[in-house]
């Protein structure tokens, strides 16, 4: 708890800024010294963090890129390489506008097999699950209307139950069997055998339904943009 029980007024000043002079503290210590102390502390802290960041950032970035790479290849079986297309002003573009920040743009990963033919597209999406947000990446074939694969990227679902959405092989395999879109989540054993059914996990219905819901919403969002077919690759 912030200990504000001291009789003096606490002057909280962001380092380097002008002192907030609502209630000046006049004791033996000048305001300048107060600000200076905090400013120096702030600068030292900033420098220390920047140094460690120099060291760790490359590791973190490399790991993230690698994880993404692995995930895209996993949900697009048969892909030999992929190209990233960004959604810029409603159109798919392989390059970003000058000076733009990558994180601000939605993107789709288009996979190509060895001969250069398209194998499908992958997108990631996150929505509220049973506990917190579930983030998945999914691969689908917009022309054939089928799912090619799914991978859970982030999940805080209940350990032992909800986390089966990525731990239960039988559940996950369903998404790689080429189900038709849009998916329908059914209780295990009570499905009619339709090609778009996904058996949910017993005891984790909500987490299971979250996965199918995310997939359906993602496909619904991207289908109109891909109506013209998968964007052509610039490379031969």
């Amino acid at each position, binding site marked *: 708890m912030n200990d504000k029980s001291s009789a*003096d007024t*606490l002057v909280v000043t962001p380092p380097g800024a002008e002192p907030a002079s609502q209630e000046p503290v006049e004791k033996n210590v000048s305001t300048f010294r*107060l600000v200076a102390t905090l400013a120096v*502390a702030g600068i030292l802290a900033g420098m220390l*963090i920047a140094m460690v960041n120099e060291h760790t950032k490359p590791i*973190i970035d490399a790991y993230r890129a690698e994880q993404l790479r692995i995930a895209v290849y996993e949900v697009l079986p048969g892909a030999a390489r992929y190209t990233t297309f960004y959604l810029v002003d409603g159109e798919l573009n392989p390059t970003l506008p000058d000076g733009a920040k990558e994180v601000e743009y939605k993107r789709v990963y288009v996979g190509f097999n060895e001969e250069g033919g398209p194998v499908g597209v992958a997108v990631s999406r996150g929505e509220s699950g049973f506990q917190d947000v579930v983030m998945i990446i999914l691969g689908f074939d917009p022309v054939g209307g089928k799912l090619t694969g799914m991978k859970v990227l982030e999940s*805080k679902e209940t350990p*032992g139950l909800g986390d089966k959405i990525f731990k239960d092989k039988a559940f996950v395999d369903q998404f790689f069997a080429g189900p038709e879109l849009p998916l329908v989540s059914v209780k295990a054993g009570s499905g009619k055998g339709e090609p778009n059914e996904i058996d949910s996990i017993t005891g984790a219905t909500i987490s299971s339904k979250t996965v199918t819901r995310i997939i359906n919403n993602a496909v619904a969002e991207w289908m109109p943009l891909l109506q013209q077919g998968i964007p052509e690759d610039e490379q031969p």
Partner: protein
Amino acid sequence: MPRETTPAQDLIRGIWEENPVLIQMLGLCPALAVTNTVKNALAMSAATFFVICCSSVLVSSCKRFIPREVRISAYILVIATFVTLADMMLQAYAPVQHKELGAFIALIVVNCMILGRQEAFSSKNTVLRSLLDAIGTGIGFTIALLMLGGFREILGIGTFFDIPLFGSNFEPWVVFVLPAGGFLTLGFIILGMGYFEERKKAGNAA
């Protein structure tokens, strides 16, 4: 001014007698949020341990330079710095654990326990004693979190540190790994401790 306690007492005090979570009821947010498994509890304890030890040492070394009026801001700045460092290092070297703990690593900054130690102890004592105090508090925190994590994982999933303990016929009490379980487990532990206190008092009085 030096306290009347011995260095050993500074170390041991935080472990049980003044346990930050179980007795002082500080740092509840992380204690309940990330203790649904023992692994998470350990990771959080380790990160917090790092932050509190470094902060206490730094605050104690610089106590002469920190004017009284801005001491809280200074402590927060120190703590925030180490939390950032812990966050970055965890993300680089243990990315899976980092993802599990998520936002709660950053929330170590507002863990009242750490700020409390700076205000109550590190700002008034030598570096060595502050370090001992920090270690003691850190160990106490770890013990509390392990207790919580242990209960919740054993009863809620049937494993301890991912090692299954019971046969496949065990029906886990899932409620314990849900948020409700966090509250209930800590509540039961506190009730249990209260019960033993009462018995001890009754025994002493008799």
